């Protein structure tokens, strides 16, 4: 008889029940009736397990009244068989449906050897120790990664082509032109904010023309580089981490390694170079957009003419200060590329790990941007 175990039992299905019979001394028969499926509520096996005491030598089953069954029945039976096995009771499975017998046999076939057991709960000291070791390992990875990048740069300088030019142009385009709209918006608004804050204060002294100085210097020295850095960290750094992380998951990076292609040269270097070159350009663009944004306030609120405002802004900025912003932007570009690619390369083999790599890339980039910004400013004004 072919069992039809899976058609979801209609509402009139009989409830799953077992009854115990003792046909002879030492014999116990379990009669299974009703529908034993994932959707029913099978009885508690406790009193059956208790009935398997020393008096029982042989265990039989009957399943004549069994209408439906699925894995729900099987786990019920495994519990019984386990107990019977421990108490050295002989089990005769002939009374079970053939499908059930086959699945039970299949589940008892020799399993794959478990090679190691994943770690469970650990002592605090062990965990602290592991954390420290992980930190050391982290440091080592960063050092190795830096070294590999330097080697790739040397290879590039030596005239080799560690990556495809086409890739490089794509990254240039993606982080350069692709970022213009969002950089325009943010930089212009930052210009407006700076100008607005300055206007309220400087108007009190009748020195509203100096708003142009404030906006110009503010953008060129700090905000242009900082804002484009933060935008690119979110827009590009995150995507680098996700790209490399996914490649790590798919073993694409391993494939590059085994072909003797340096993943750092092939994947990381073009990305970092693209950011190093494009972020300064974006910074210049952000400076201009910021000053233009500020001039809107100057013209509408402070009765300055546009030419006046721009001329005043230009006079306030020295070329070296302009260069300072560009230098910062370039450093930020390298750091963002570095953080994004490093996190991507360190990514584990799961979707969750890719997500963590992305988050961590953005956080690391922003921390690095702010820290290096203070550091560079300190060095230049010491």
């Amino acid at each position, binding site marked *: 008889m072919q069992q039809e175990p899976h058609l979801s039992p209609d509402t009139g299905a009989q409830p799953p029940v077992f009854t115990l019979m003792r046909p002879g001394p030492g014999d116990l028969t379990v009669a299974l009736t009703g529908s034993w499926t994932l959707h029913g509520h099978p009885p508690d096996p406790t009193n059956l397990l208790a009935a398997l005491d020393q008096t029982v030598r042989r265990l039989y089953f009957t399943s004549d009244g069994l209408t439906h069954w699925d894995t729900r029945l099987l786990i019920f039976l495994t519990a019984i068989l386990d107990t019977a096995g421990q108490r050295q009771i002989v089990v005769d499975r002939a009374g079970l449906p053939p*499908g*059930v017998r086959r699945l039970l046999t*299949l589940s008892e076939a020799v399993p*794959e050897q478990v090679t190691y057991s994943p770690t469970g709960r650990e002592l605090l000291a062990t965990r602290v120790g592991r954390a420290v070791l992980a930190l050391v390992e982290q440091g080592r990875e960063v050092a190795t990664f830096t070294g590999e990048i330097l080697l790739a740069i040397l290879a590039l300088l030596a005239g080799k082509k560690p990556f495809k030019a086409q890739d490089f142009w794509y990254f240039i385009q993606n982080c350069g032109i692709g970022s213009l709209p969002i950089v325009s918006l943010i930089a212009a608004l930052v210009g407006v904010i700076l100008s607005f804050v300055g206007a309220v204060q400087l108007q009190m002294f009748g020195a509203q023309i100096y708003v142009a100085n404030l906006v110009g210097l503010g953008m060129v020295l700090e905000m242009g580089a900082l804002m484009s850095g933060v935008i690119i960290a979110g827009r590009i750094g995150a995507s680098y981490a996700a790209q490399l992380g996914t490649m790590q*998951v798919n073993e694409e990076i391993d494939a590059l390694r085994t072909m003797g292609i340096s993943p750092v040269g092939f994947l990381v270097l073009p990305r970092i170079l693209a950011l190093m070159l494009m972020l300064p350009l974006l910074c210049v663009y952000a400076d201009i957009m910021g000053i233009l944004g500020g001039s809107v306030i100057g013209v509408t609120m402070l009765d300055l003419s546009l030419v006046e405002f721009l001329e005043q802004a230009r006079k306030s900025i020295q070329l070296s200060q302009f260069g300072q912003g560009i230098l910062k932007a370039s450093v930020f570009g390298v750091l963002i590329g570095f953080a994004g690619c490093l996190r991507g390369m360190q990514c584990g083999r799961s*979707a969750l790990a890719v997500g963590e790599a992305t988050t961590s890339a953005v956080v690391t980039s922003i921390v690095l941007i702010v820290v290096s910004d203070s550091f560079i400013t300190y060095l230049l004004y010491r």
Partner: protein
Amino acid sequence: MTPPAPAITVKGLTMAYGSYVLQRDLDFTINRGDIFVIMGGSGCGKSTLLRHMIGLKQPAQGTVCYGKADFWALNEDERATIIRRAGVLYQSGALWSSMTLAENVALPLQHYTELSPEVIADLVAFKLSLVGLAGFEAFYPSELSGGMRKRAALARAIALDPDFLFFDEPSAGLDPISARNLDQLILELRESLGATVVIVTHELASIYAIATNSVFLDSEAKTMLATGNPKLLLRECADPTVLNFLTRGTGQREVRTV
């Protein structure tokens, strides 16, 4: 013997990606309890056909019926009820990488049944033991070999005791022994669970060993060239392309025993 009941019927199906038509006018029937093989060369649209059957891709024309129900004419909820009765083993395994094996197998059970966590844990342990992975509950997919991953994916596919099992190249990438064991496992599960099985494969050994019915897709003709039991096709099919495929290019009409 009861007459075979159609489980899945494909009617006048045309499959296309945008304006690029892969296959047209597919017509065949899969009976309940069949082991149905979708054959054909690489890129002829076997995986795509499977995607049409499990509701991942809408037909350009024609339809797929489950029993008497026209799958693509149903609303979303009704489709979901049908698909819930199907277990799918994807070509790449598609285990959820950030969950342990136990969590992978437990997810459909948690989602579709009201069972208590203890019962689910028992069920998961049993499913894993069925595929020879007892004791691997706490492992992540990335910690397993390819064959083990396939079997873990199989355990997930059978988590809900499905009526229909779909396999996309289950033995691709496995060594011959593991591939044969997996075939054996699929056969055994079909026998015991009484499920209808649809397999995409181009492993001739598997095809002859386990198939009871089949369809042959061809990318040149852009349609099916034959349907029926592959052993019968080997003896009777007149189409040179099918014959060439079934005899691995030798043209000899006898089943290579494996």
